[in-house]
Structures are given as C-alpha cells and as structure tokens.
C-alpha cells in the first residue's frame, strides 16, 4: 500500500539531523521504500510503499519509529520522541453509558468512550495543513480528529452521535445475507453476509464496522455527545466485505492488514486528548475496553550460527542485539543462543528465526553484504527434455521465412472440443476455455492479417490442454502454423525440409480430415503412429500441426552417414503421362522400390497429367553400363504402366 507522510508531522516524533535525501535513501535501502518526495510550501510529502506485512509502518509514527532505528546504521544520529498522551482515563470491561456485546471472533478488542458537550467547529490551522498534505480534506474538528489519529498512528477511529444509539446498546455481530445498511456516504448496501456490523438497542444496523459508519448514527451539526470508538477487527471479514461491496476505505485497508490490538490503547487516548483540545468536550472517567485476549509478547530463539550462515558474514552478539533493540525487540543472549521478545506492533509479521534474521540483515544493510556465486556441486541436467528440439525447429522455420507468434492459451467455447477445461472467472467469453488445439488461434491469425497480399507463414510452439479425469490436463507441446497466399507445394516443401533436417522417417498419407477441404489433407505418420497433419482448411489457409513429443520420438538427433558413392550416377529425366487424378506421391513411393540401382527419383516438372521425373541410376561398386540402365528404365516404365496406367511421352 502507498502512504503519504508529511515531513513536518514526522519531525514531531523523529529527532534527527538527517537531510531529506539521506532519510529517503536510508529508509529505502533498509526499510519501506520511498518512491517519491513532493515539495509543498513549507513541507515535504513522502510517497512511501509499505509492504502488506508491515502495516505498523503505515503511519507518521510508524515511519518515525523505523527511521529512528535505521538512520544510526548510516552514521546519522536519530531518536524517536515517543507519542505521549495526557488522558488519565482508566480502562474498564463495563461502563454505565454503554452496554456492548461482541463476537470475539470478529473483534479482538473493542474500546469506546462517551465525550459530552462537544463544540463542532473548524480544526486549528496546523491540523488542517497536515491533513491536506496527506491528501485528506478537513471538514470539522470531529471528522478531522478521526483522520488525524488514523494518519498519525495508523489506527482507524470512528465517532457516533451518542444520542442516536437507541438504548445506549450495541451488539457487534456477523451480518446475515441480504440485510441492508446505508453508510455515511449515502450508499445503501445489501450485505453479502458475514460482514461485521453493529446493531443498536432497536435492532437497527448503525455501523458497517471497520469500513464505514452508518448514516443513521453519524455525527451531524447538532451533535452534542460523541461516542469515540476504537477497535481491532478480523482482517478476513473486513477484506471480503469491502471487496464484495466495492467499498474500499482507508480504514478498511488498514484493518485488512491485521492491526496490533495494543495500538488501540494509544488510539483512544490520543483521540481523547484531541477531543479535549479541539472540541472542549468532557470525556467520561472510564473507557469501555472489551479485550478478551490480551497481548503476550512472543519469544523467539535463534542461534548465532543461524544468522552467520544465512548472511554469509560474521557479526558480534553486541551488534545483533543493538539492531534488534533499535527495532523494539528485547534481547538476551544465553551462550550463542539469542532470545528475542517481539514487540506488539511486530506481532503480525515476526514469527520465526528467519524473521529475526531479516531484521538484523536489513539494519546491517543488504548492500553491505558480499556478493559471490555459490560453489558446490552442479546438479545434473533434466533427462529427455525437448527444449533443444523445439529451439531447433524455431530456428529452421524462421530461417525459411516463418514468423513466430505467441497466442493466448484461452479461447472461446466454439473453439474447443467438448470437455475442455473451463475457466471459472474468465476476463471475457472469448477467453473462457483452455484450448485443446492451436488451430482456431491460427485461423484467427490468418484472418487478422487478411490485408496482407504477400505470402506469409506464421507458426507457434505452445501447449494445448486436453482434460483428464481428476487430474491436471495432459499439457501437450504442439507445433502449428499456417501458410497464407502460398501454394500447396511450397507449403508442403517447407514441412518436408523441416522433417528432413530433423532426421525423421515420416510417411505422408493422403486422408480427409475434419475442417480440411476434401482430398487436400495429409496425415504424417511415423510407423503406425500419427504425429501430425497438413492440409488446406475449408476456411482457406494451409494449416499444419505436430505433437512435439511424437515428432521428437520420430527424429534422431544426428543424421546417419551413408558412404559417398565412388562411381558417378547416370541421371536422366523421364516424362510420363498419367490418367487424370493419379496421386503422384504414390508414384514416387513406388519408383523408389522398383530396383536397387534406382537410387533416387524426384519430381522435376508437371503439366496437367504429365509428370517429369529425374532418375538417378547408380551402382555402389561400379559404373552402370548403358544396357543396364536401359533394363532398369524398362522396369520403371513397366511398373508405372501396370500400377498407374502411365505411358511414356513418345
């Protein structure tokens, strides 16, 4: 949370010679981070980021306490001037002026005091100025006191018009779902249930506790008697209520962090002092204080060696104690064992030896610790990963003009197979399911680039999330892509080249498939295992996809070596005319097995049903005679004639 602190106000409690610059730097390096310093008239305002565990520093007093502990480490004298209160009121579990019942699970400590005959008027200038500096609008002395105490010590304070509380009775309880309450700002809320509320003697709700008071019990211009009200509430209830009602007040933000119930003592006394000073009101003799479980300081034990091994340096016991004492911890060494008593304002974030270590380390200064890479054994690599394989594919495809994309893993309902994982709280309908195929994302990508006239190829390697019963989905890494404005042969050529460079032995089988145009799709198989598909989609572009793991299994990391033939091949082109609709892929497959000495057959040219093949005749141990080549050629022609009805051109 970000808070504003007035320098002028801070100096009420922080006695130091530190310049603004030094203060900012030391605080940021060893404590809360000062994000910005704003200069206003005769004051500076610090914008400070307080981490959620350190709500004790979310106030002027809290920052003063931190600074007083941190600055000496930077060689700057600093002292905390404790906040002293004048109020002599005593604390009592029962008072005559108010009858209260609480649910101790919702409220750890409940205090209140009646202050009679208040005079409502504007606050003195210094109060107004400080409130403005920290972003509050001064209203009148009563409202200003609440805000002032909250910013000064970090304890929210509330005031009721005492005379509006029917029967001087309060019952603090959990709300029931559907109960209604109108807050000070005039908003009427239908409560979600389990909110902390207070009802008066008439059973009417007068406070949305910890968040905002009820309108029906608010102090107004005619108010004579005020009930000053300081509590500690259960942070979880507060958080749930303000999130559900979207009623995020400063008080709620403090309460949801879990406040120190001991702080209530200071809060109510400081409030009484200000009421006396600013409103001439007359407080009762006793403060109502319902405090079922009083605070008992925790003791944490920590070994000297524990601190040293985790910091990587040696520190004396004296230095360690000094740091902790500055931060309000009481310390005692027993041999090399340190016992530290946690002050109440740190009870919400210090539990373990590690927490004590952190306090010592930050006061020593993280920036003062040495910097060294660990030695020790290097762990062994994860076996069988596909990381390198994937990177290789990305290099190859982008080398041939492919453009890599990253698309969102969530898609709309029409883009998934039944049973796909549904997101319970999606950002929109279009992104409410975990995708089970990359295809819809690529169809969209092609469409989004419809204006592009040149050929393009985009691809991605990403997970799909097929569901499994009672288990996490079977996250599968897939390679997919589309070719747009590209011929089928060119697109297929890129995939063929990829499969060749990955050293795979993959069969292409022409088979129809869902979403693909009839006869325009091939299945890619390694043995009998389907590893991918390629084809022209009904919607236009040429799409392909592979299961990365299957593809990896079908490939070998290094290419195999074939001895270089000693004798040259005889190469010739052979033109054949086929009946219409002959699958030329099958012809080539068949040519490759016609004769041992027909080493290679490639398609060179096509014209309608006429195909020209280039044939390599080769014998591993000698040069083939012309007559031998002729024999093989005759066999080829015979084969294609018998199998495919082809005839030679001449």
């Amino acid at each position: 949370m970000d808070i504003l602190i007035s320098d002028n106000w801070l100096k009420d409690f922080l006695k130091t010679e530190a310049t603004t610059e030094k203060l900012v730097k030391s605080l940021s390096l060893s404590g809360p981070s000062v994000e910005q310093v704003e200069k206003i008239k005769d004051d500076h305002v610090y914008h400070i980021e307080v981490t959620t565990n350190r709500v004790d520093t979310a106030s002027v007093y809290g920052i003063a306490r931190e600074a007083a502990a941190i600055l000496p480490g930077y060689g700057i004298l600093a002292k905390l001037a404790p906040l002293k209160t004048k109020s002599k009121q005593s604390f009592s579990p029962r008072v005559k002026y108010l009858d209260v019942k609480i649910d101790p699970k919702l409220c750890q400590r409940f205090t209140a005091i009646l202050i009679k005959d208040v005079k409502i008027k504007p606050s003195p200038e210094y109060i107004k100025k400080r409130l403005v500096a920290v972003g509050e609008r001064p209203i009148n002395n009563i409202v200003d006191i609440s805000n002032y105490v909250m910013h000064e010590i970090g304890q929210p304070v509330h005031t009721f018009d005492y005379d509006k509380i029917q029967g001087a009775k309060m019952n603090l309880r959990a709300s029931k779902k559907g109960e209604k309450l109108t807050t000070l700002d005039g908003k009427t809320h239908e409560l979600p249930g389990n909110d902390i509320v207070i009802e008066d003697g008439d059973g009417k709700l007068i406070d949305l506790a910890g968040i905002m008071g009820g309108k029906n019990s608010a102090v107004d211009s005619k108010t004579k008697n005020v009930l000053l009200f300081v509590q500690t509430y259960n942070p979880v209830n507060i958080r749930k209520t303000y999130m559900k009602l979207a009623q995020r007040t400063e008080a709620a933000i403090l309460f949801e962090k879990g406040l120190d119930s001991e702080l209530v003592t200071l809060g109510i006394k400081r409030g009484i002092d200000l009421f006396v000073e600013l409103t001439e009101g007359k407080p009762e003799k006793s403060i109502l204080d319902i405090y079922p479980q009083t605070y008992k300081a925790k003791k944490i034990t920590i070994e000297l060696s524990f601190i040293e091994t985790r910091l990587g340096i040696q520190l004396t016991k004296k230095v360690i104690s000094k740091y902790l004492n500055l931060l309000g911890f009481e310390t005692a060494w027993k041999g090399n064992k340190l016992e530290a008593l946690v002050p109440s304002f740190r009870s919400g974030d210090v539990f373990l030896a590690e927490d004590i270590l952190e306090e010592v380390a930050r006061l020593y200064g993280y920036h003062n610790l040495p910097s060294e890479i660990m030695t020790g054994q290097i762990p062994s690599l994860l076996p069988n990963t596909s990381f390198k394989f994937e990177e290789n594919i990305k290099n190859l495809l982008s080398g041939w003009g492919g453009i890599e994309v990253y698309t969102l893993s969530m898609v709309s309902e029409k883009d998934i197979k039944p049973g796909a994982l549904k997101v319970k709280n999606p950002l929109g309908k279009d992104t409410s399911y975990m995708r089970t195929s990359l295809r819809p994302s690529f169809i969209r990508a092609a469409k989004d680039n419809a204006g592009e006239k040149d050929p393009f190829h985009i691809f991605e390697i990403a997970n799909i999330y097929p569901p499994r019963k009672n288990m996490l989905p079977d996250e599968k890494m897939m390679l997919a892509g589309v070719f747009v404005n590209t011929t089928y042969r060119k697109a297929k050529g890129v995939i063929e080249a990829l499969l060749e460079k990955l050293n795979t032995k993959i069969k292409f089988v022409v088979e129809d498939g869902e979403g693909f145009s009839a006869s325009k799709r091939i299945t890619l198989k390694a043995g009998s295992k389907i590893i991918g598909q390629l084809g022209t989609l009904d919607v236009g572009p040429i799409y392909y996809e592979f299961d990365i793991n299957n593809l990896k299994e079908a490939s070998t990391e290094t290419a195999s070596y074939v001895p270089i033939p000693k004798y040259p091949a005889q190469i010739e082109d052979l033109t054949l005319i086929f009946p219409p609709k002959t699958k030329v892929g099958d012809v080539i497959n068949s040519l490759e097995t016609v004769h041992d000495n027909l080493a290679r057959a490639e398609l060179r040219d096509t014209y309608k049903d006429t195909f020209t093949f280039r044939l390599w005749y080769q014998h591993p141990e000698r040069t083939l005679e012309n007559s031998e080549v002729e024999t093989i050629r005759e066999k080829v022609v015979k084969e294609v004639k018998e199998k495919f009805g082809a005839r030679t051109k001449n």
Partner: protein
Amino acid sequence: MQKDTIKTNKFTSVLLDVKNEALAQIVDASSIKELEELKIAYLGRNGKLTNLIKNIQNLPDNEKRQAGTLINESKNTVLDALSTQKNTYKETARDWFNASIPGEKPSVGHLHLVTQAIREITETFEKIGFVKVRYPEVEWDWYAFEALNIPENHPARDDWETFFIDTPTHPKNGSMVLTPHTSNGQVREMLRVKKPPIRMLNIAKNYRRQSDVSHYPMFHQFEGLVVDEGISITHLKGTLDYFARNFFGEDRVTRLRPHHFQFTEPSFEVDISCGVCKGKGCKLCKEGWLELGGAGMVHPTVLRNGKIDPNKYTGFAFGWGVERTYMMKAGLDIGDIRLLYSTDLKFLKQF
C-alpha cells in the same frame, strides 16, 4: 645520297606500315584488355614504334629531324586511337551490368521477442549450472499457493487476481488454477530432485486476471531456485550480479532492498543500476536504479513442503517477468504490451 634517301623512304614506309597495322588492330580490338596489350605491343619498351624511334639515330643527320616529326605524329595518332577506342568500350561496347541494383532477399523469418528473451536468459543461467525445467501451467492450488506458504485468505488467491478452472476440488491438492507465477516449480523441483543441490531455472507461461497497456492475461516469468548446504544472501547477490553483468552489461550491478513475499524470508526487491546514467540518477531511473523484480531466501515452510530439511539446507529464489526484463535490456518502449501477443505481422516483422 640516294642510298640515304632510300633509307629514309624505307623508314617512312615502314613507319606508315606499323602505324596502319596498329590502327587496324585497335579498331578490331574487342576489349579494354586487348587495347592495353596493343599499347604495350606498339608503345612499350620493346614496342614496334618504340623500336623505330630507336632506329632514328641510324639515319643521316639531316633527315633525323624529319623522321622524328613523322614518328611523333604516328605515335600520337596511335595513342589517340587507343583512347578513343577505350572510351567506346567503357560506355557502350562493354556488357551492361548494373551493380547498384538491390539484392533479392530470401524470405526472412522472425523469432518472437519472447523466444529471443528466453534464449538469452537461459544461456546466461545455464553457464552457472542452472537446470532448465518445465512444470504445469494448469496447476493445483497446492503447488501454486498453499505449499508456498500463501494462506487461503491471501489476496493472490482471490478470484479477481488468479484464474480458476471450473473443476471439482481435489481432496489433497485443492482447486485447479492457472499458475500466476513460475514459483509453482519450486516445490515440484524439490520433490523431483529429493536431495540438493538444486539449481533450477523454470521459464514458463503465467496467467493473471489483468488486461491493460502494461498487462496481458498471459505472460512469462523466469524463476531461479538454488537449494544446498550453506546457501546465504551472499550467494543470491553473487548470482544476481552475475546475471546483471552478463545479461545487461559488464558495468551493471544489482542491489537488494527489503520487501515482502510469503514464500521467502527475508524477501527482497532487486534493483539494477541504470544503464543510461550509470547510477548517477536520470529521468529513466530512480536515483540511478531500476526495479528488476523480487527475490528472497526460501521460506523454511516451503522447504519442508518440498520434503527438504530446512535445518540442513537453505536456499534462495527469484522470479521475474521475461517481457519486462528483456525490454529493459533492449531499451524497447512498446507502448502497449498486448502487442506482443497479437499476430500483427507489422509488429512481428520488426524483430
């Protein structure tokens, strides 16, 4: 007398023959190279015309002058013819070739920025023994939160920050979520390795319920986890400084500031010295420093959840945004981060 005249006449006719022969060959020459050769053949140190000049001294004195004039004329004629012919070749007769024409590029592909970033980050950490791993993106609440000491009521577990999957709750592992950070790999890695040393590098997709110019619901983080005997804050600093020097530049250093995360204790915010002002302070940075991300010493509860004895082993972890870290390095200012995850070719082709 007559003899001399004959001599002179003969000289003149030889000279004319040589000149005409030269001119004829010059006209026939088909290249500049050939012309250069002709120049040597006639006017070189042993050239035909040069040799005639040498012969002048054998002529009678009264004719030497006339012969000298003649030979000079012939020499000039041949030189003229050579240059004229040479220019002709330069301008026209030579094969026209336009070397200034732009090349024909092969179609140029593009790796995505995130891939480039992940590669550089991976390379940097693999050199100091980090092991790259891959863990689920769709994850159990246990690994994403509970095992990381993030209590049930923590804001990170609210359904306005984290995506939940609509499935029945698992009796042991809780709800199914889209992991909002790479830290889900921490306990998984501990359980996989069983016995430290651990030096894990987990780079993965993460998801959070945010979408604006600086957030996309899907993004990437890289997570480092080191667990061994005697691991201290010093080692964390050493590792981060190593990364800063090797990834960002030799003169860059990091610094730690106090922060708070549930799964580390102590926790730090990591800053890197500004590359523009070199730490002096400028418009781009805060007093010479830029925020990199969070880090910390692994919380003993997390170690215990990974079945590792926190009394014997300690560790540190850090987890930062891939996109942000890379943009800081490259000095890229992409106004709307969502562009990274668009399929706009005009954007993708720039990298």
